């Protein structure tokens, strides 16, 4: 049995951020990961010789001086060659039945481009972008301003996106465009906290980057850094219980029966999982347990990973294919027999994407309940009716894209797909959800769970506690680790580093 300053459960970007930050500050850390490889949703995999990513398609605020760049740099895990700037003239391409809109990098250019599509809405577009930039300044872990006005950030997290957009513009097509990024975290516009939306939009418009060698490369750099700072990351260590003794977790037990002790335990797992691991939950109130039990999930994802020939797509662009530009329709849950309302296409940024060959993934929302009947079947051995259902879903995803890219299906050379059950198998996320719990105004800001818990030395971190996405999950660890090492000095150092970059 070995003792550490901090034990970290899960090696997704939040667990790795916690470990890198704490070990940088001289703490001894040990990361316990259930799967055979580190990275969580950041992990890449190979199929038919091509490299694909699960949940690391693109990230924002990655230019020098911007928050994510600064944070990774601060943690000693930023390698310029690992990232590739997306097309500045249009990194995201939004396809709507009425036409295509390319979003360029930078607020001024973005405003100009949108104004060219919506000439009578110039004022609304300007106000919208102004509000976004003002709002993000109030988030200390994003602006790195320790004196940021938390009243304002909490308010922005209590305000639904629709409540901000509707007074600005009555044009449904412009509203639909402003809501398009809700497809990234699966929270409907009426539930999306404006503060969360503002950070997503700000980060992507200012510094959109892809991964030149996949998310795995960033994971590898993190692990090397943690090890260089004396920490360790252990794989195949599924945590099965947190032994509570008095006010604290006294031991962390793995499936193999190993027992670890630490001053602090940080869990990056979903609250339902984390609190379910406690051997004694009598310190939790009935009210809290009810809240956790009732937390809704962000919904599952169906992904097709494909290689095509003769497809004229720019590897440095993402595509959002919408079946409708009616803001009320675009995030209505659809059935498996309907065309998906939105398909997100992300191209591989690796050098393999050359000439007419294109490697990419297509994502669409698909609730866990569609797959639940196969939950007890094993990965790799699922029955034929599951496979037939997947074929049907793949066909509907292609159909959604073909509306804008006729003949796509005929260009596909090879493809495989994954369902929420695959995510459940590899990641253990509740209901195989891609973004953890449903990040509505109901579950964010002043109402969020964590990072502290009733068990005094147990902290929580990751996408379930602050914001979803790699950036959100990573900065959530600043708040979490702030309870161990103090957040103010870290924010000051980050601010200074950002200003120097």
């Amino acid at each position, binding site marked *: 049995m070995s003792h550490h300053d901090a034990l970290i459960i899960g090696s997704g970007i939040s667990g790795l951020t916690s470990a890198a930050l704490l070990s940088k500050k001289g703490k001894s850390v040990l990361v316990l990961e259930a799967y055979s490889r580190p990275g969580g949703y950041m992990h890449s995999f190979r199929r038919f010789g091509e490299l694909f990513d699960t949940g690391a398609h693109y990230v924002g605020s990655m230019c020098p001086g911007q928050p994510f760049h600064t944070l990774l740099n601060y943690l000693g895990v930023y390698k310029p060659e690992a990232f590739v700037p997306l097309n500045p003239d249009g990194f995201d391409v939004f396809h709507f039945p009425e036409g295509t809109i390319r979003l360029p990098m930078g607020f001024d250019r973005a405003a100009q481009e949108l104004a060219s599509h919506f000439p009578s809405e110039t004022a609304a577009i300007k106000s919208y972008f102004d509000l976004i930039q003002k709002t993000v300044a109030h988030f200390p872990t994003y602006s790195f301003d320790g004196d940021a006005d*938390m*009243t304002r950030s*909490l*308010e922005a997290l*209590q305000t639904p996106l629709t409540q901000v957009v509707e007074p600005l513009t009555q044009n449904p097509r412009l509203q639909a465009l402003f809501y398009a990024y809700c497809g990234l975290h699966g929270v409907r516009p009426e539930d999306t906290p404006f503060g969360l939306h503002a950070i997503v939009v700000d980060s992507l418009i200012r510094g959109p980057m892809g991964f030149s060698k996949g998310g795995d490369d960033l994971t590898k750099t993190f692990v090397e850094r943690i090890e260089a700072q004396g920490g360790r990351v252990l794989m195949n260590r599924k945590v099965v219980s947190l032994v509570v003794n008095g006010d604290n977790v006294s031991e962390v037990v793995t499936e193999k029966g190993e027992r670890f002790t630490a001053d602090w335990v940080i869990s990056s797992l979903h609250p339902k999982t984390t609190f379910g691991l406690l051997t004694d939950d009598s310190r939790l*109130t*009935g*009210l*809290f347990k*009810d*809240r956790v039990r009732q937390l809704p999930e962000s919904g599952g994802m169906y992904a097709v990973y494909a290689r095509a020939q003769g497809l004229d797509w720019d590897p440095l662009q993402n595509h959002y294919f919408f079946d409708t530009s009616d803001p009320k329709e675009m995030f209505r849950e659809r059935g498996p027999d309907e065309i998906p309302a939105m398909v997100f296409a992300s191209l591989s940024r690796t050098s393999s994407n050359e000439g007419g060959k294109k490697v990419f993934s297509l994502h669409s929302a698909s609730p866990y309940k569609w797959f639940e009947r196969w939950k007890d079947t094993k990965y790799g051995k699922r029955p034929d009716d599951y496979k037939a259902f997947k074929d049907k879903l793949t066909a509907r995803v292609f159909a959604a894209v073909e509306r804008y890219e006729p003949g796509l299906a005929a260009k596909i050379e090879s493809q495989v797909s994954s369902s929420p059950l695959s995510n459940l198998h590899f990641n253990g996320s509740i209901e195989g959800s891609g973004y953890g719990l449903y990040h509505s105004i109901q579950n964010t*800001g*002043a*109402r*969020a*769970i964590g990072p*502290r*818990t*009733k068990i005094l030395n147990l902290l929580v971190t990751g996408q379930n506690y602050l914001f979803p996405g790699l950036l959100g999950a990573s900065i959530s660890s600043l708040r979490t680790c702030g309870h161990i090492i103090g957040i103010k000095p870290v924010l000051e150092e980050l601010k200074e580093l950002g200003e120097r970059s």
Partner: protein
Amino acid sequence: MLNQDPVDPSLIQQINDLMASGFEIPPEKLVPSAALKELGLDSLDAVDMLVYIEDKFGIKVEGEKLTSLRTLQDVYNLAAEAVSKSK
């Protein structure tokens, strides 16, 4: 606080019910002057309280006010203020 309107007794009752059932506090301890700390409630419980009050009454409580709550009377007042604002 003295010049504040008296809080609607049914609101007080509902909050007391929450304290008794959600936080397992003996009803006899639920007097307005009771310090939350003495009742065994900390800042994490204040978050659960906020969530409960918001959902129960369909209102929004200003999150940053949570840190200034000291006594049960403060909770009544905060809830009453949010209810009257939402009207």
